[in-house]
């Protein structure tokens, strides 16, 4: 029965199919890149500068004669790892803050939420820039900055959900049975908001990829010789006219990465 339902749904759900295919391709490219790349991502070749697409260089070469495909395979790993780390920090801290303030309420809730609201209204790319300017540049700093910048949105979502669940019958029941507050939050309430969290994480992941790309483009992220996709684009921009493939390839990989996940999200939301 279950098999039948899934089969039918996937067929009627082009978003889900497209999402799975695109995400699969991007992940494949990235995972293969961990074990094997066509060339050494940092190997320069003075005779092969700014070559277009060819059999030996499927995405062409950059201004130092490095193979763009190999660099993209490596760069997508950096981008993915930073995005995952960002969402991990943002979701974990956001969940704890949101759950605790929402559950206990009171003065602390007022104060913390006032700050969270103010930060939430603040563009996250700018928030990350503030933190980077205090901690310095580099990919670890970038990861932490983005992570912190993503806390407010998760905190708000979780707080709203906890407030909603707090007044439900099953929570009141558990309370009558003498369940402790911490157990109540983590065992009884949080598992019930996993649907909301899943979509928040998908959206957060996409925002993180975009924010990382933007910040790396501004030059506050990963340092040479290894580069994330955003940094590659920033380096490539001036060669737009001489070798378009050098700009287009990393850009398209970023787009596909985000698109795959947003199709997945859209597909999941249309699942029913």
């Amino acid at each position, binding site marked *: 029965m279950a098999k039948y339902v899934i089969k039918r749904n996937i067929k009627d759900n082009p978003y889900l199919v497209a999402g799975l295919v695109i995400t699969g391709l991007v992940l494949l490219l990235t995972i293969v890149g961990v074990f094997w790349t066509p060339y050494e991502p940092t190997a320069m070749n003075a005779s092969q500068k700014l070559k277009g697409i060819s059999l030996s260089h499927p995405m062409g070469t950059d201004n130092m004669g490095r193979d763009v495909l190999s660099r993209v395979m490596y760069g997508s790993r950096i981008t993915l790892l930073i995005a995952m780390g960002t969402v991990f920090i943002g979701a974990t801290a956001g969940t704890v803050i949101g759950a605790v303030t929402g559950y206990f309420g009171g003065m602390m809730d007022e104060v913390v939420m*006032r*700050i969270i*609201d*103010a*930060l939430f*209204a*603040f*563009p996250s*790319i*700018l928030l990350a*820039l*503030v*933190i*980077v*300017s*205090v901690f310095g*540049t580099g990919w670890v700093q970038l990861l932490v900055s983005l992570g912190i910048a993503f806390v407010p949105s998760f905190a708000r979502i979780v707080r709203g959900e906890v407030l909603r669940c707090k007044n439900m019958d099953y929570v009141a029941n558990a309370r009558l049975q003498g369940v402790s507050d911490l157990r109540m939050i983590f065992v009884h309430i949080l598992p019930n908001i996993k649907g909301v969290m899943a979509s928040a994480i998908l959206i957060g992941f*996409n925002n993180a990829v*975009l924010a990382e*790309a*933007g910040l790396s*483009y*501004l*030059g*506050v992220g990963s340092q040479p010789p290894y580069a994330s996709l*955003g940094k590659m*684009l920033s380096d490539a*921009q001036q060669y*737009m*006219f001489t070798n*378009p493939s050098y*700009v287009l390839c990393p*850009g398209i990989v*970023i*787009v*596909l990465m*985000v*698109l795959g996940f*947003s*199709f997945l999200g*859209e597909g999941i939301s249309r699942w029913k």
Partner: protein
Amino acid sequence: MKYTLKKFVSMIVTLVVVSLCVFLAFNVLPGDPAVRMLGLEASPELIAQTREQMGLNDPFLVRYFRWFIAFVQGDFGTSYSYSVPVAGLVANKIPITLTMGLMAFVITVLISIPLGIVTAKYENGILDRIINVSNQIVMAIPPFFSGILITFVFGLILRIFTPGGFVSYTEDMGRFVRYLFFPSLAVALPKISMTVKMLRGSLIDEAAKDYTRTAYSRGNNTNGVLYRHVLKNAMIPVITFLGMALADMVAGSIVIEQVFSIPGISRILLTSISNRDYPVVEAIIMGIAVIVIVVNFLVDVIYRIVDPRIGIE
């Protein structure tokens, strides 16, 4: 009136909270400003003397209030790297970034509202499907990448504008605005998609409500129901979103300025970040924060006009 006052007070509170955060971030966390200004080789006496001069020995709150009052009066301190007042450094750059953000906002509103209406009106039609898929794709393109693509297509191939040919508003207002059009479009693109998606969903939700049936029962045609009844209701969540989008677009302009070599606050902000020139960073961040907070206040006020239920518990 009571509602507006409440929102005004809340705006002031938020301003204080944010300014406190900014003050903490730039004046307390990074260590001793006197050492930073004089360098690590400076003698302890000189540092002590400078600390006294800069008032760094005063209690935290005194320092904060002195900083805050100076800020309100337009005194943003002195740049470490350029040794000139920050106000002079950023004054002629803020209008550029702000214009770009506002233009992006206007473009977003002008394009997304008609598109949102069309997609909702012809729900599941061919146009709706095409726009929905395009929305997903556009949302996946980082604005700086669409900026690069726009430069390539409209600047280098079609030659509709000259990349790098920025003209300041002090020279020629018309050419200034014309040059900013494509950068603003790059900033606006993802927001257009989000707004269309949101307005479409909101319109479809509202169209299913009971009051639309009442509207039809009085002899309204589809357009009458849509424009006289549903649209205003559907705009309520979209207004909140647009308010936040405006703030985002001002911030997003910073990245796009780099793509189109526009001498807004982006370059000085990035240089100051890498030089750790905190007074400059601080002034720019506070400036944007003030814009964000004031915009949020205005959104709340507009909200009250659109939705009469707001403010009554």
